[in-house]
């Protein structure tokens, strides 16, 4: 540690860190639009420039390593003039449509302009004119609002290893685009929506489905049912003014009923069901010498990724549908039969922390006889908007329970919301399936936490099972490359597309810190700790579903409803 002088005062700096980190730790804020925690600085936005004594130009603090004896002025007139000019220049080429923008009041550019006191248009020249790309079922791109901070490009390339978008053209015509300027739908985009989370403006947003859901709710001929993914209840509160990590499960269920949904189910139920199917599939593969290692299949972004980049490993992917699709399938079969509603009159909505789920719901194999299993997918963000739109005051609601038969869940199913959760739930049940006994210590520490790659050797009876948990597709890519190169000590691999799992999925609140994601994760573990029913195979309603309807895991009916097949996919890169 050493000291540097900032604005006339001495502050502590760590050797090797960038000046921006030093400043932030010491409570001195300089704005940035392109900085990404944990990734190498690109120095694109130039907003974090400061004056450093002895340097001719202004210095970007994001990419300037601190050295002893530094004298810095962070808010000198010269630095302020530069920042203000940069924002003025951005605004000069930005649509004046804030009132109609999905990010109004939640826009980094808007806030920055206000902070810096930009109150008039200084440059009245031409603006770039671009068309909106609404070709994707998940993500809408509005390049006119793009300020080219490059975060989406970087997250797509460096975190997700997909590179569906990149900078194209030169000079003031530069724009982030797809290969050959084609629609995002035919690109290699996996619909994960991580780009939306990092976008400082309204250039990237989810394909909004609120109107469709509202129309269904207004339609008397429709029975509208809703399910919600495990990560939603621990995140929704943030969008409604609560602090991160608050679980609003009961209140959310009450809100569903206020909004007019006929039934409110919990996707955790089918997470438990997934464990029964996937766990049995794993045991079968191990016992019968099937293709190993086996990859999980819950994450639709991951599925599209492997379909287009590593189709040769598709036999390694579990044939189980994701919990969303399993729920959709049992609602329109078992539940429809049981309640006597024509599946065609059921409008099945799912609330997901995910944009790729919108794509998954539309896959042709996810339905039967022309009736899709899921009719509409809303992200956590859209649900919050709908709650506000319909004037539902969550503070005035009392928690309510989910509807039967798909409201009961184990906390193992709830853990699906975070990276390592599927693995932990699977280990708990696989242990029982193989040994016939319950695991003594249910908490599997090795697969917990936000790290992108976690590995463990798990002893189940005589068997030592090699497991790996990866989140963020770049990590998945690296692991597959290892396997390609001959690695063979793994049996079961959980892959979640988004870094950290669904708690930081592309449908979650934008622009949040790692702290918030960690709080969501803690909330999930807290729920697991407080729960009595902590293993999927003990879920009474799951057992009953097998008894009354499905028969047994991997049985004929299961195969028809709960399993699917994935295919090699050609895309324009």
């Amino acid at each position, binding site marked *: 540690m050493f000291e540097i002088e900032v604005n006339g005062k001495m502050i502590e700096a760590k050797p090797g860190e960038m000046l921006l980190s030093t400043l932030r730790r010491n409570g001195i804020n300089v704005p940035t639009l392109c900085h990404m925690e944990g990734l190498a600085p690109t120095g*694109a*936005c130039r907003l974090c420039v400061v004056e450093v004594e002895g340097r001719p130009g202004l210095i970007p603090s994001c990419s300037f390593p601190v050295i002893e004896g530094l004298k810095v002025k962070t808010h000198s007139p010269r630095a302020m003039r*530069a920042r203000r*000019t*940069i924002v003025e220049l951005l605004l000069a080429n930005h649509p004046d449509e804030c009132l109609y923008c999905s990010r109004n009041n939640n826009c980094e550019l808007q806030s920055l302009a206000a902070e810096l006191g930009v109150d008039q248009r200084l*440059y009245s020249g031409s603006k770039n004119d671009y068309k909106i790309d609404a070709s994707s079922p998940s993500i809408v791109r509005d390049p006119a609002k793009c300020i080219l901070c490059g975060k989406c490009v970087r997250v797509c390339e460096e975190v997700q290893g997909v590179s569906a978008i990149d900078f194209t053209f030169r000079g*003031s015509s530069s724009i982030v685009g797809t290969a050959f300027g084609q629609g995002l739908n035919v690109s290699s985009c996996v619909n994960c929506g991580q780009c939306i989370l990092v976008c400082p403006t309204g250039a990237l947003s989810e394909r909004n489905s609120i109107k469709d859901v509202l129309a269904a709710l207004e339609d008397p001929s429709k029975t509208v049912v809703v399910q919600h993914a495990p990560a939603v209840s621990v995140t929704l509160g943030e969008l409604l003014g609560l602090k991160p990590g608050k679980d609003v499960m009961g209140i959310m269920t009450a809100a569903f009923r206020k909004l007019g949904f006929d039934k409110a189910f919990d996707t955790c139920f089918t997470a438990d069901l997934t464990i029964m199917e996937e766990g049995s599939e794993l045991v079968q593969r191990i016992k019968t010498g099937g293709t190993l290692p086996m990859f999980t299949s819950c994450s639709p972004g991951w599925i599209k990724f492997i379909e287009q980049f590593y189709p040769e490993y598709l036999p390694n992917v579990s044939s189980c549908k994701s919990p969303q699709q399993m729920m959709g399938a049992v609602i329109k079969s078992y539940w429809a039969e049981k309640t006597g509603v024509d599946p065609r009159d059921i409008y099945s909505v799912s609330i997901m922390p995910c944009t790729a789920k919108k794509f998954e719901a539309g896959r042709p194999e996810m339905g039967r006889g022309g009736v899709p299993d899921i009719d509409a997918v809303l992200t956590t963000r859209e649900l919050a908007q709908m709650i506000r739109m319909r004037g539902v005051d969550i503070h005035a609601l009392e928690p309510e329970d989910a509807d039967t038969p798909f409201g009961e869940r184990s906390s193992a199913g709830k853990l699906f919301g975070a990276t390592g959760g599927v693995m932990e739930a699977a280990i708990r049940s696989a242990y029982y399936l193989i040994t016939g006994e319950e695991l003594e210590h249910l908490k599997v520490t090795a697969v917990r936490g936000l790290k992108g790659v976690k590995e463990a050797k798990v002893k189940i009876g005589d068997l030592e099972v090699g497991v790996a948990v990866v989140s963020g597709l770049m990590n998945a890519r690296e692991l597959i490359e290892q396997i390609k190169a001959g690695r063979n000590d793994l049996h079961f691999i959980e892959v979640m597309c988004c870094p950290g799992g669904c708690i930081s999925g592309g449908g979650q609140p934008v622009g949040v810190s790692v702290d918030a994601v960690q709080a969501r994760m803690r909330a999930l573990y807290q729920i697991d700790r407080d729960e009595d029913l902590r293993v999927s195979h003990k879920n009474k309603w799951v057992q009953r579903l097998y008894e009354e309807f499905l028969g047994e895991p991997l049985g004929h009916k299961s195969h028809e409803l709960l399993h699917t097949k994935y295919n090699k996919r050609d895309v324009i890169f």
Partner: protein
Amino acid sequence: MSELLFNRFGEGCWHQTQKPCPDLVDCLREGPKCQQNEEKKAEYAKLMAVYRRDTIAKPVIYLGMGTCGLGAGAGKTLAAIKAYLNEKAIDADVVEVGCIGMCSAEPLMDVQLPGRTRVGFTHVTEDKVAALLDGALKGEFDREALLGQLKPQHDGIKAWDDLPFMEDHDFFKPQTRWVLVNCGLIDPGSIEEYISRGGYTALAKVLKSMTQQEVCAEVETSGLRGRGGAGFPAGTKWKFALRESSNQKYFICNADEGDPGAFMDRAVIEGDPHRMLEGMIIGAYAIGADKAYVYIRAEYPLAIKRLAAAIEQAKAYGLLGENILDSGFNLKVIIKQGAGAFVCGEETALIHSVEGKRGMPRPRPPFPAVSGAFEKPTIINNVETLANIASIINNGASWFNAIGTERSKGTKVFALSGKVNRTGLVEVAMGTTVRQIIEEIGGGIGNGKAFKAVQMGGPSGGCIPQQHMDIEIDYDSLKKVGAIMGSGGMVVMDEDNCMVDVAKFFMDFIQRESCGKCIPCREGTKRMLEILKAITRARRTEGGFQALERFKGIMYLQKLAEVIQDCSLCALGQTAPNPVLSTLRWFHDEYEAHIFDRKCPAGVCTELLIYDIDAEKCTGCTACATQCPAEAIMGKPKTPHYIVQDKCIGCGSCLTTCRFDAITAS
């Protein structure tokens, strides 16, 4: 390729490309060392003299076949020469050489008769070939096309009595030709000719007797600074990379000459590719790189062809590849063609492009010498920098730094273009004045016009006005007057050039070539261009609001320029406003005339002119009226026409159309 010379060494020699001998270069020049065979030695001395063209058996005709020569019709001249020789059944060698530098006098042809000096001619278009050769092959020279004879280098050659020496020509006399020493004289397609003139002796010396540290130190002591523009001491940079321990290092030659009006690197590679290549091999050895790239723009097909051939020849002689000259040093050279982006001259953008990515700069540190191509230590040097290395090694640092100013040593090549009588490639000692280059070498301004300014350093540089013409050229003095050395572009402007228009031209170039990454450069240069366009836009079509915008823009022009300079990511952005700032500094009055009086003093900004028809001169031919896109010219045929000022858009097409000088512009 012709026969490899070492194959003639005979029995005692064991050299092979795969099993090299450290003495190869010396043996090639003086005959095999390992044999006490005086006859062999004499044979090689003779051979070298032939390659140097000191002794020739039959007439040799040299033709400048650089890109400039080809542009002037050298291709057709070559065909005409061959046809002539064929028809007359004359046995003569025809040698295609690079550019000697006098681009404005191309096509250049030299004729050398056995035992006599080489005599040069200018403007040798195909139609002149027969007449010129009729005389020259008989020793009778056409004085009008004559450039001069080369001074005899050797006793066996006799000068022509009454011909002036080329070296004494105004264009060549003030020059110090180190980098260009072979350009235009030797056949760039022949490694033997390069070796005969001392080529690859520096490499042999380095590999045989110098450590990496010694090479770096020698180059550092010489004071050689990067010729690509920034002027960083080359030897110091090499030391940084040498210091890094890594399993892989890279050496890159930056031949991505992107400045409008610059063609130094192209001419060096086209005219003497081995000189650059030798410097690069020495540099790679000095830092410990075994892989090197030449990043060259795809718009230089001839240079690429010559370079590729040079690499193949060097490989065949074992001067590239594995275990070069038995030193244990390996080097592979790869030509990487760039797609012609100006920003790829910036080293981090260039590295991205070499890696196969979009050419966009990244922040430094880390500097490429620490983490460059593929995140390995990488040195990037410009072509001209590398072309200096062999001479420094051969002659020593103190030979090199004896010439120049206190902080800038050696020579600098400039691409002289614009409104001078002689345009072309010139190499002068550091410390030569701008005036000497323009008035002596360039022969002053043509058509009796007055000099106004010279733009130095291309779009990143600035202009030097008349009052600073006596400035001695070096890296630091140029900065003081708002220009930069840059890579060596020198565009001369006379009184007919409008400085606002010049600034607009460079701004237009820069804003199109910005990579789009950082906001000040991408958005700021676009706005600066718009402001400049508003200043030079037609007053007739301007509404009140636009006038207000014009004045507002002027208020912001200087601020924008300063902010872009202050906080852009790379040198492209940081220097982008220079042309505007420097013209604002020296030609403020021209800006004021455009802004307040709405006049362009040089008459370049046509939209600002008022056009009239002189009724006395107008014949009523109707040509102007037919051309006018705004239908602003009225009048009956065969009677004087007139211009309806309210309709005129100021395009100036009438002025260029009129054959009777009847249109006036004021």
